[in-house]
């Protein structure tokens, strides 16, 4: 934007959102979506490390075949804690509540979310849920695993099952509020010219994930409520001795928990779809297909829950149908992998840390995806379900996929969020370390699983020890790779170079305002003139080979002034 344009705007409108007050109270009462994103980021980081610490002890215990670090009950509580915290307090809120909150209004050219106060409320609800979760942890979480299967959870488990369930129940309100906000914002607050098919894929991902959140979370809420009611008030719902059905719980639980996987992976797909075109300097390949693929994943994702229950005793016919739908839902995911790959074709690729994370995401997600296909085959699933094979598979999707993408987004948007550049070499090192640490940790678990090592086992046959030791070693590498960014990103807050408005030369609207953005995001409502990834003319490359390498995008989506 030009100096003349800036000159017309009063100074208080130009001040960055970070400068709008620095007292704790100003943060705790803010309705600015950017500040709420920061609040969420701090909260989920704390939970990420709590969940990580729990699994750290588990991996230490698994170094030897015998039980030698913790008791059986403690072990069971630790993996329950790891699952509950990581799924509901880190992965589900991770990308939507941080990058989604921060970027959705910026990307569509809006001054804020549709319901800013609801947005803040959602954070307080999440905080309350977190406090309940911590109370449950300190006093002993229920040893049910994160899946809460009845009648173990309603009757037999020790520990505070009801508190653990209550924490998740309350967290659900936060998810729902976020989803409602995103949907209303996307519908009602797009800047002039921002048509649906000009939305960046990240916004599409947020829209798709919001729909899943809004429609799946309530089913989890009622399911956990029924568990709490049965456990605390003694009202029989699932009680099998009275004619209740333990499978009813599983159907209800997985009706949420399978779509929940898509709550975790769709935002990751959105991030990759922003980062890869930017550093490849290419339009994303097959934009419309990418949009349809996300909608298809969100929709079909609701109809595959039964593939978690192939050995549960559900009918053979149900197994067939769910197996079929699981293959169908894999098609759009495969299309996305092909399209990201094709986006690289004839690009001008550079390898900043964000790009390395994004490429790592594609690889790990692809591996998680093909092992998912194996699990969709009923005979293979009968053998490997509830073993480390499944554990490895979903960690490839959720950690290899979602967490890698989270770090890709963190590095990509860090200059926009903080106005500072992170140290590039450190970041590249951490990205590579994370990729190898991850594979080192989880690849051996595929072999372990096929060999017949059940999950949630504290003691195991000695011939599996080598793989467990490998996995634990890898986990410590992975832990280092997670701690590293915490260090250098904090460092960059104080000593990092100033970033400038658009350090990567990206085309999105969020890069057309200052870094960090002012409170109302844009000094004037942006006008959108183009699609999201116009890094080069429709049929051509951005620059002839050997031409001067400018960071300027070929054509940004629009401008504010």
């Amino acid at each position, binding site marked *: 934007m030009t100096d003349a344009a800036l000159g017309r705007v009063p100074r208080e409108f130009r001040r960055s959102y970070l400068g709008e007050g620095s007292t704790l109270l100003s943060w705790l009462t803010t309705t600015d979506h950017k500040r709420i994103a920061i609040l969420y980021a701090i909260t989920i980081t704390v939970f990420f490390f709590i969940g990580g610490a729990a699994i750290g002890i588990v991996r230490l215990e698994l170094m030897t075949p015998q039980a030698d670090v913790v008791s059986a009950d403690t072990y*069971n509580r630790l993996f329950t804690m790891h699952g509950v915290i990581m799924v509901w307090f880190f992965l589900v809120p991770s990308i939507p509540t941080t990058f989604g909150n921060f970027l959705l209004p910026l990307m569509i050219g809006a001054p804020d979310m549709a319901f800013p106060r609801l947005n803040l409320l959602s954070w307080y609800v999440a905080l309350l849920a977190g406090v309940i979760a911590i109370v449950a942890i300190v006093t002993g979480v229920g040893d049910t*695993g994160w899946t809460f299967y009845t009648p*173990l959870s309603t009757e037999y488990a020790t520990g505070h099952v009801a508190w653990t369930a209550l924490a998740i129940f309350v967290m659900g309100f936060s998810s729902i509020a976020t989803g409602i906000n995103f949907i209303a914002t996307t519908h009602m607050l797009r800047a002039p010219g921002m048509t649906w098919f000009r939305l960046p894929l990240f916004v599409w991902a947020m829209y798709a994930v919001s729909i899943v959140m809004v429609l799946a979370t309530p089913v989890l809420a009622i399911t956990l409520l029924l568990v709490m009611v049965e456990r605390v008030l003694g009202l029989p719902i699932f009680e099998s001795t009275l004619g209740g059905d333990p499978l009813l719980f599983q159907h209800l639980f997985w009706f949420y928990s399978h779509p929940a996987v898509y709550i975790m992976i769709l935002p990751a797909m959105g991030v990759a779809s922003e980062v890869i075109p930017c550093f490849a300097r290419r339009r994303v390949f097959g934009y419309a297909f990418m949009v349809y693929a996300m909608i298809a994943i969100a929709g079909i994702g609701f109809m595959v829950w039964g593939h978690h229950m192939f050995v549960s005793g559900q009918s053979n016919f149900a197994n067939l149908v769910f197996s079929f739908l699981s293959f169908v839902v894999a098609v759009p995911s495969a299309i996305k992998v092909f399209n990201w790959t094709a986006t690289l074709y*004839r690009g001008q690729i550079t390898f900043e840390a964000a790009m390395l994370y994004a490429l790592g995401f594609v690889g790990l997600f692809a591996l998680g995806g093909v092992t998912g296909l194996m699990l969709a085959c009923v005979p293979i699933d009968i053998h490997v379900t509830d073993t480390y094979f499944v554990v490895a598979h979903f960690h490839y999707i959720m950690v290899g996929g979602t967490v890698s993408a989270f770090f890709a987004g963190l590095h990509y948007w860090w200059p926009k969020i903080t106005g500072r550049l992170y140290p590039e070499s450190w970041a590249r090192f951490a990205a590579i370390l994370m990729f190898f640490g991850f594979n080192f940790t989880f690849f051996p678990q595929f072999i372990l699983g096929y060999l017949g090592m059940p999950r949630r086992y504290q003691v195991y046959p000695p011939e599996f020890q080598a793989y467990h030791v490998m996995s634990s070693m890898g986990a410590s590498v992975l832990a280092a790779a997670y701690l590293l960014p915490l260090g250098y990103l904090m460092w960059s807050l104080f000593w990092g170079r100033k970033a400038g408005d658009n350090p990567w030369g990206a085309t999105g609207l969020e890069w057309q305002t200052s870094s960090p953005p002012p409170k109302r995001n844009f000094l004037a409502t942006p006008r959108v003139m183009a699609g999201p990834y116009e890094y080069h003319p429709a049929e051509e490359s951005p620059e002839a080979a050997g031409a001067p390498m400018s960071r300027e995008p070929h054509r940004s989506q629009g401008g504010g002034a």
Partner: protein
Amino acid sequence: MHATLPLFPIEASVQAGRTDELFFIVLGMSVVVLGVVAALVIGFAIRYRRGSPAKRGPLPPLISREIEIAWTAGTLFTFLFVFWWASSLQLAAKAPPADAMPIRVLAKQWMWKMEHPNGVREINTLHVPIGRPVRLIMTSQDVIHSFYVPVFRMKQDVLPGRTTTTWFQATRTGTFRLECAEFCGTDHARMLGSIVVMSAPDFALWSEAQPESDSLAQKGAALFRTLGCSGCHATQSAVKAPDLAGLYGRAVRLADGRTVKADDAYIRDSILQPLKDIVAGYQPIMPSFAGAVSDADLQDLIAYVRSLKDGGTP
């Protein structure tokens, strides 16, 4: 630390060979797809790094909507092929052969109780002959467990209040690990057992050597009298209740017009929830025995009713 690093579990059942075959085919396809994706990503990353001399310019006409449709269709058909194959395998393997040897399994925190057709009971160990199909009829006394024998590639959840079945046919003698695969509380990781597969003569010898014990059906018959079932269900009884002789396996017409098969689940339901399925022509007068009979008792009673199908009278 163990001396050798196992890479692949041995195959000890008919099902194991089939599962592994499918697994290797899908694995091969996966390796090819992943290899292509990895080669393209790395290849493009090197060839089209910024400033490289590779040709850029307009895209060749081939790279367009058509290729997108082509790989969507290609992926879909590949997946459908794998689905078809996996499902046909599943359907073929689901039903146990008619002559399968029935073994009753009762799971509880944290042990397995097995019972042979001749009444021999075992705890955490199951002896079976090689080459003969074995059908497991399982239920749980408390929480959900899962009967998992990795070398058989066989797993089936064991539920409270329900009967689940699965079967296997061992192809290799030896002692194999049985594990509980569904998290079931404190000692889940210690809910282990072993499956001892023996040659037919060895199994016969082992079976001979077991102490005599009442068969399930005999115990069921005793329960049938002590619980007072015989008061109504015996043929000479004054109260009109359905005759159980020859009932097992037959189709039963119900008062509401439905027809159900008198299998394990039906008999179990009839004992626990008599009002659920009223037999046509009878009054709903039977009290529920829920809470009065244990899961083990139920197995005995069902075995007894089953024994009546060959012409016995209650």
